[in-house]
């Protein structure tokens, strides 16, 4: 029997029970959808990590207040006030930490920014002069922060490119005054468009001296984080150790488990994201596996029903010369066509959902989450769905092929 005739016969066999067959493949559709999402989101996460590392540089160490979060309960500790000017000074002392290029403090808060009638809710970033190096930014117009501004708590602001456009449009911003938290600030510069650096969207923020931010915006004396940079990549581990020792001594901590701060390197950050995406992958993979097995059993069930219903047809085909192999192939092909069809729908749905997820994640995370059509996952999906069809189709098909022609012909 020719292959084209085999496929045609199986396809026609399926078509006679269209609505029933459609319901049967639901499990396969869900399974393959999950596979596509796993691969696609995994890819997006990886792209994101790479861009983040490229943005901050592998020499950057982020020191945050509170213990390193291991569970949801630990996140509250991120708001402790363990990092203040005293800690900053201690770290900047080269007798304490060697191989450190600089440390830049950060104070972040979202506040409304007004200029005349324009209002924009933005991140205020309070930092020091070194922020230019941390974020690798420079001024388009005017200046970035100056040492004097830090020392004197001056009310000056540097605008991200988008904030500048939002408030001022095309007209000049430098020398103008904006209002934040009821206080007036002089715009001293605008930042050249930069986009995302780490978790900061440079274009949408306003940069002011950290001393000013602490005094007038947050009203507290602690920092949200310290950004340190080692002189080279090799000294990162040593710098981290020195930072930890210095802060522990300063805070009188003997037991590292009682740390009231934590230092993360970009390698650590990558690991964390890896753990999160790994968990997500494991979850979705098990969804995929379960629904594929359930879907496969559904296929097997419907094929068994179909074989029973078509006993007469099977007998007739055999009486007219169909071999056992012909009948086996017929039903096996039916189930494979079914599952592959489900697989194709799953690939389309998975791609669509991943694409939507990329839009949502971009919005929620505030950073570009890339979507690429996962070709390798699509091929994997096709392979998996065909295999499910083969594995779960073999038993019904074997059963069909073993029917004796006369029993089948007599079946009413």
């Amino acid at each position, binding site marked *: 029997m020719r292959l084209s005739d085999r496929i045609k016969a199986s396809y026609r066999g399926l078509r006679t029970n269209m609505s029933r067959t459609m319901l049967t493949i639901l499990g396969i559709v869900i399974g393959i959808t999950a596979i596509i999402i796993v691969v696609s989101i995994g890819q997006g996460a990886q792209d994101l990590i790479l861009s983040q590392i490229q943005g901050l540089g592998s020499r950057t160490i982020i020191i945050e207040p509170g213990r390193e979060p291991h569970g949801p309960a630990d996140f509250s500790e991120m708001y402790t006030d363990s990092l203040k000017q005293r800690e900053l000074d201690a770290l900047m002392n080269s007798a304490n930490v060697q191989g450190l290029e600089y440390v830049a403090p950060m104070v972040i808060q979202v506040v409304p920014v007004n200029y005349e009638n324009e209002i924009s809710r933005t991140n205020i970033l309070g930092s020091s002069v070194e922020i230019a190096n941390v974020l690798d930014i420079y001024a388009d117009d005017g200046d970035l922060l100056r040492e004097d501004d830090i020392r004197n708590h001056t009310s000056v602001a540097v605008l991200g490119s988008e904030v500048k456009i939002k408030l001022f449009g095309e007209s000049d911003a430098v020398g103008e005054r904006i209002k934040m938290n009821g206080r007036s600030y002089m715009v001293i510069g605008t930042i050249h468009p930069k986009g995302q650096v780490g978790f900061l969207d440079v274009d949408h923020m306003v940069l002011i001296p950290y001393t000013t931010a602490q005094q007038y915006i947050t009203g507290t004396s602690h920092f949200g984080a310290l950004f340190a940079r080692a002189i080279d990549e090799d000294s990162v581990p040593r710098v981290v150790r020195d930072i930890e020792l210095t802060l522990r001594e300063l805070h009188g901590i003997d037991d590292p488990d009682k740390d009231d701060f934590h230092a993360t390197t970009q390698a650590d950050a990558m690991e964390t994201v890896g753990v999160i995406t790994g968990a997500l992958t494991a979850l979705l993979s098990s969804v995929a596996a379960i629904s594929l097995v359930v879907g496969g059993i559904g296929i097997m069930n419907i094929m068994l029903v179909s074989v029973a219903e078509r006993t007469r047809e099977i007998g007739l085909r055999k009486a*007219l010369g169909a071999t056992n192999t012909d009948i086996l192939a017929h039903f096996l092909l039916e189930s494979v066509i079914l599952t592959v069809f489900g697989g194709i729908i799953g690939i389309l749905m998975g791609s669509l959902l991943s694409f939507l997820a990329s839009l949502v994640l971009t919005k929620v995370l505030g950073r570009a989450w890339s979507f690429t059509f996962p070709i390798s996952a699509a091929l994997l999906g096709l392979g998996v769905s065909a295999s499910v069809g083969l594995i779960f189709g073999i038993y019904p098909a074997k059963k069909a092929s073993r029917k004796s022609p006369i029993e089948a012909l007599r079946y009413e």
Partner: protein
Amino acid sequence: MALIEARNIVKAYPDGTRALSDVSFDIQEGEFVAIMGPSGSGKSTLLHVLGFLDGQTSGTYRYNGKSGDQYEPDEIAKLRNQKMGFVFQSFNLLPRTDVLENVALPLVYAGIGKKEREKMALKAIRLVGLSSRIHHDCSVLSGGEKQRVAIARALVNTPDIIFADEPTGNLDSASGRVVLEFLQKLHSEHGHTIILITHEQSTAEHAERILSVRDGQLESDVKVEHRRFAKEGYEK
């Protein structure tokens, strides 16, 4: 060597019904034999055994010198596909499939291409006079038309032997005569071996020889003295 050799064939169905008991006969290649008997006498059962569609409970049956268990399963499939033509008592047409495809079905399993298949099928359909119905779904056909589709399908692969189970059972006398004439023509002009099952003496007399069965036993095996020829006239 006879084409068909049946020796002491016994067929008991699982429920205990003894449909055939101790049936023995030979049929030579090229013979036209009628198997005659009342309803329930075991005619169809016998035909199924002869066509390797069903196994006998005991006794030996040889086709072309080989018994069923001496053939490979695929060989038997090939035999049914290319050497035997079946006209089943209950037609057994594929549902939701048109006349042309039903007739061409054995050719699909013979691995013949679509074009050639359609050519051969159309020829067989013309022979049974259904050319105007080729694209009709088989389920809408009348009983007689279905019977003719079944006959066309049995002929399409020009088999060596045709097993026809009551092929005139659903036909009026005129159509029945056409079928019998046709079987006689296949026999005389093309040398096909024909086994015709019927419960009517008059139909059986179109064959050269009549095997009568009753209650699963071979009652008589006689040569037809005054053979009927459908071309001359056929009475019910």
